[in-house]
């Protein structure tokens, strides 16, 4: 492979930065040629085929429970439910959303993972279940509440979430949820093409009764690889309006703690305990202690 001087400098800076800041934590932006998905609420009929296909392919157990008045079951994501369709109610109607790992370019889970068990495999944010210690930091750091450590099955206690069907993709298959969708509410393809098509859909929706329709994930956190066409503002649909990279201001946080320690060192310690002149004389006369 030929590499020029600028390329070498870029590569080495990225490599050193990666070592210092955590492998792959600071990624420049989403790869437009990488594979991604888009979920379209307007096409979704809420059949939950995606949920069932995910459970079947990954051999995830069922989660019995009460539906609590809605037809949602399971009610949310867990270590054994990696994709879920949620029925959202509004005063003037209802709509569906699809919850799963968003496979962020700037993945908070990957950045905070203390052991490096979470890493980007291309566009996919993957967890090495054999290396994960189950500390739960990714659970606290994820802006979408995706990772969970409550698995009662294999690799008990480790963090688990949607794998974007890494194994299927390696075999040339599309993700199980996408394959199962009967109405093409979930589509899979190159990110660039998907974004272009999704923007057209958003324009159509905005002109036809959904003025707040938007494509969620195009720019958020450097670009998500699993995007959604939403009918309303993200917060109305259960997504954060401004998802935050958990370690975005970690240096400031360290400084906040260190500066506070410095202030306390001066006030009260320096004021109360510093050696005074009279004491210095006493010490010089051999009165130490």
């Amino acid at each position, binding site marked *: 492979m030929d590499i020029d001087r600028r390329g070498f400098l870029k590569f080495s800076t990225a490599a050193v930065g990666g070592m*210092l*800041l*955590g*492998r792959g934590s600071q990624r420049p932006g989403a790869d437009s040629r990488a594979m991604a998905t888009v979920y379209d609420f307007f096409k979704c009929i809420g059949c939950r085929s995606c949920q069932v296909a995910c459970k079947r392919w990954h051999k995830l157990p069922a989660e019995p429970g009460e539906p609590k008045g809605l037809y949602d079951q399971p009610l949310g994501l867990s270590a054994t439910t990696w994709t879920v369709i949620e029925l959202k109610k509004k005063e003037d109607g209802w709509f569906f959303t699809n919850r799963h790992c968003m496979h962020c370019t700037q993945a*908070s889970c990957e*950045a*905070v*993972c*203390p*052991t*490096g068990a979470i890493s980007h495999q291309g566009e996919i944010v993957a967890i090495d279940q054999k*290396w*994960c*210690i*189950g*500390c*739960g*930091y990714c*659970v*606290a*750091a*994820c*802006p979408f509440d995706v990772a969970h450590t409550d698995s009662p099955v294999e*690799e*008990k*206690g*480790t*963090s688990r979430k949607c794998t974007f069907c890494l194994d299927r993709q390696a075999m040339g298959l599309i993700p199980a949820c996408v394959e199962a969708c009967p109405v093409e509410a979930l589509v899979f393809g190159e990110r660039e093409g998907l974004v272009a098509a999704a923007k057209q859909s958003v324009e159509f929706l905005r002109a036809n009764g959904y003025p707040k329709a938007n494509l969620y994930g195009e720019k958020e956190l450097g670009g998500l690889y699993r995007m959604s066409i939403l009918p309303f503002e993200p*917060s109305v649909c259960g997504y954060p309006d*401004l*998802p*935050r990279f*958990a*370690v975005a*201001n*970690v240096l*400031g*946080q*360290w400084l*906040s*703690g*260190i*500066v*506070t*320690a410095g202030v*306390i*060192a001066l*006030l*009260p*310690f*320096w004021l*109360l*305990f*510093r*050696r005074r002149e009279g*004491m*210095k004389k006493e*010490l010089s006369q051999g009165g*130490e*202690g």
Partner: protein
Amino acid sequence: MVWKWEVAVYLWLAGLGGGAYFAAFLADRLSGGKYQEWVRFSTYLGIPAALLGSLLLVIDLGQELRAWHLFTGFKLLSPMSMGSWILLLWSITGIAMIALWFSEAFPLEEEGFFAGLASLLRPLVPLVNILGWVAFVLAVLLIAYTGVLLSATNQALWGGVLFLPALFVASAISTGLAALLITTSTRIGPFLRSLFGEVGQIATAEAVTKLGKADGVVMAIELAALGGYFVWLGTSPNPDATLAARLLISGSLSPFFWAGVILTGLLVPLALEFMALRDERTATPLTAVLSAICALFGGLILRVVVVFGGQMIL
């Protein structure tokens, strides 16, 4: 809820250990070596506290036997990775200091395994001075880390809140001072002196009063940091941050917050300290110990409400 009482107690213990060493080392160095025994007390108490806390943290892991994976690499961006290393290095430094103090105090004429070990370590005793500074830097990082760990997340009560590390640092030093006050004002101090060998003079009542005054000022700083913390949450563009603040102020955690953190942990010790100052007298041991117990309890409840409250609003 992924982080439970073990994490809250761990954050309290690590803060207490690091805070006690921070306070004792500064008092000793600023005064020209007058409080060497405080440095030793804080190490004797702080290292076991931090190790006990680490044990709780390991118990809390989903895969306890894989805890060693934490030490297979550095990740500067991950506060948990950095914190694990800081805790490990701080514990090793503290244990090395205790070993060197032990070798210094061990009677030369004795024989046996410990005498042999002591004679082997004795030439290294001058290193204690350098190790003391290393432990001080690590103690600052340790107490800061307990707050950074929570703020580098996306939970409404913790995520990105710059005042959280400040609050936890002030609280850690306050609880550390409280532990020192209890040690110096009760029989724990003389017991530790008899156990590990004596050094310097026993702290005078005046010195203990200074500790109490220092704790009073630190608690006032903690109160200010707490105020800043709530202002930050209240003015955050994230609506969940306001909900999270309400959870502590008027929600299900409010009894613990008001009675445990504010009243018992801050106002009662501050009032006791203020009364002692007003009367222009040195604090009685009973007042000092009572105030310190309240501060320790308040520090624990602060960790509990922040750790649990942070996971109650998603």
